[in-house]
């Protein structure tokens, strides 16, 4: 209990951000119509690629001969980047098709 409380106190800022992001996320995403649910999923993939930020920070701190960290960081960056690049690209590809249709209609 003590630990939980001190953890809460120390991370109060992050907890506010957490709470408000949760509220905001549900608010915003519940407005997305069914038609766009598949792009929403792939777009979410892309955004979850934000873990790459952590991998970059890990990597920048790693000693140049700490091959364990370098390897882990490298893997992390590759994995994150696949998500980012792939996610945004495939979402754009899908949404482009929706656009096209609009003009023809």
């Amino acid at each position, binding site marked *: 209990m003590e630990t939980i409380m001190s953890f809460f106190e120390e991370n109060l800022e992050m907890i506010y951000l*957490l709470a408000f992001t949760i509220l905001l996320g549900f608010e915003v995403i519940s407005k997305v119509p069914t038609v766009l649910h598949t*792009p929403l999923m792939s777009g979410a993939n892309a955004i*979850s690629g934000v873990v790459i930020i952590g991998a970059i920070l890990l990597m920048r701190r790693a000693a140049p001969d700490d091959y364990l960290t370098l390897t882990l960081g490298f893997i992390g960056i590759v994995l994150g980047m696949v*998500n980012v690049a792939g996610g945004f690209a495939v979402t754009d590809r899908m949404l482009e098709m929706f656009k096209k249709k609009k003009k023809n209609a």
Partner: protein
Amino acid sequence: MTLDFFTDIAFLAGAIAFVWGLRLLSSPDTARRGNIIAGLGMGIAILAAMFQPMGTVPNNYLWIVGGMVVGGIAGWISARKVQMTAMPQMVSIFNGLGGACAVVLASAELYYFYDGQTALSMGELLILYLALLIGAVAFTGSMLAFAKLQGLVNDRKVTLPYHNILNLIMLAVLLGLTVYALMQGKAFGFNMAMLILALGLIYGFSFVAPIGGADMPVVISLLNSFSGLSAASAGFAYDSRIMIVGGILVGASGTILTILMCEAMNRSLLNVLIGGFGSSGKAGPAGAAGDQVAKEVSLTDAAIQLFYSNSVVIVPGYGLAVAQAQMVVKELDALLEANGVNVKYGIHPVAGRMPGHMNVLLAEADIPYDKLLDLDAANEALAQADIAVVVGANDVVNPAAETDPSSPIYGMPVLQVWKAKNVIVLKRSMNPGYAGIQNPLFFMDNTRMLFGDAKDTLNKLVQEIKNM
């Protein structure tokens, strides 16, 4: 100081861009711009992470850029190459990779901690274990989901007897071990942490194993939210606001989609997770056709009927995706419209294997979206239609959902194709669909079956009509 300011601004801008981008996704007109804005936000955030002042650190920019190039190219190519019908698989793999990334980060931080290089409070340790475990489950779970979707794995091969009880026990052990690890602090040791990771990986696999292959969309969406939550946990560990924001948004999105899917199928999440009717194994008996006979129609007859009708409603389903028949549908549509037939589409919210799946496929074929009717509008149109053409759909047009309280899909809203004057069903056999149950529609008086691969059949129909 100065640079700190700019990186902080950049992260804030990135976080706002994520929210804004998702907001714009709420309309097809702005959705593309939304995706681009979210992408720009990500770009800005990555740059900020690269150049954020961190004192004198080795930086290792070569490794970083190398990794980004490799990952970027891999991601880009797969995004360009993937077929629209394979989107569920793609999303699934991406979920897995996101989870794996969080696992990697958490492992590294745990290594430093147990190695004595860093000190962590119990709360921080908890966060790391959360990132580790949620990420691990997202990783192996997604991989198995992918394999099932791709047809690489058979449900029965990976399901043990009493699998659900086994899973519960495993989960309890996992949580118990984690609590123990938290209390032990550094004494627990990195090797034990890796044991927990291994258990987590096994659990992820085992968690997905008993779930019917056809229930994968729900699972994928759930794992999507897991991958977001693991990213958010990692964000807590790295004190990175943008990771928290991004992760939580993904978590919210996955959660909402999971709930919506369960609602549209009229099932509870628990029912999906402990393996309901989706598993093809149990469905056998319910699928028996009994002694009723379905009537077939010849290609030529079907073509004539279509040609001389006034209004046609096409109901696409999962089979359309399997057969990749979206382009031929468009061809048929154009041909009929040219002959004065009014063609619409009835889109069921859970037709196909992903929310919005049919919309994406038909969009790919350039079908204008004012022709796509949602459930209510489609049912109105069907009541007026001369012919309903069911292309590889099955459960979403099953009248038992309305009439038979004992049916597993009872209560799920369906497209009432049987209200059209005539129904033509395109599928390959009398096999059941996703829910593994027989469909009384096929035996109705105004229903005719047209067996064969959907793309094939549609091609032939187009040919027939052209020759008329």
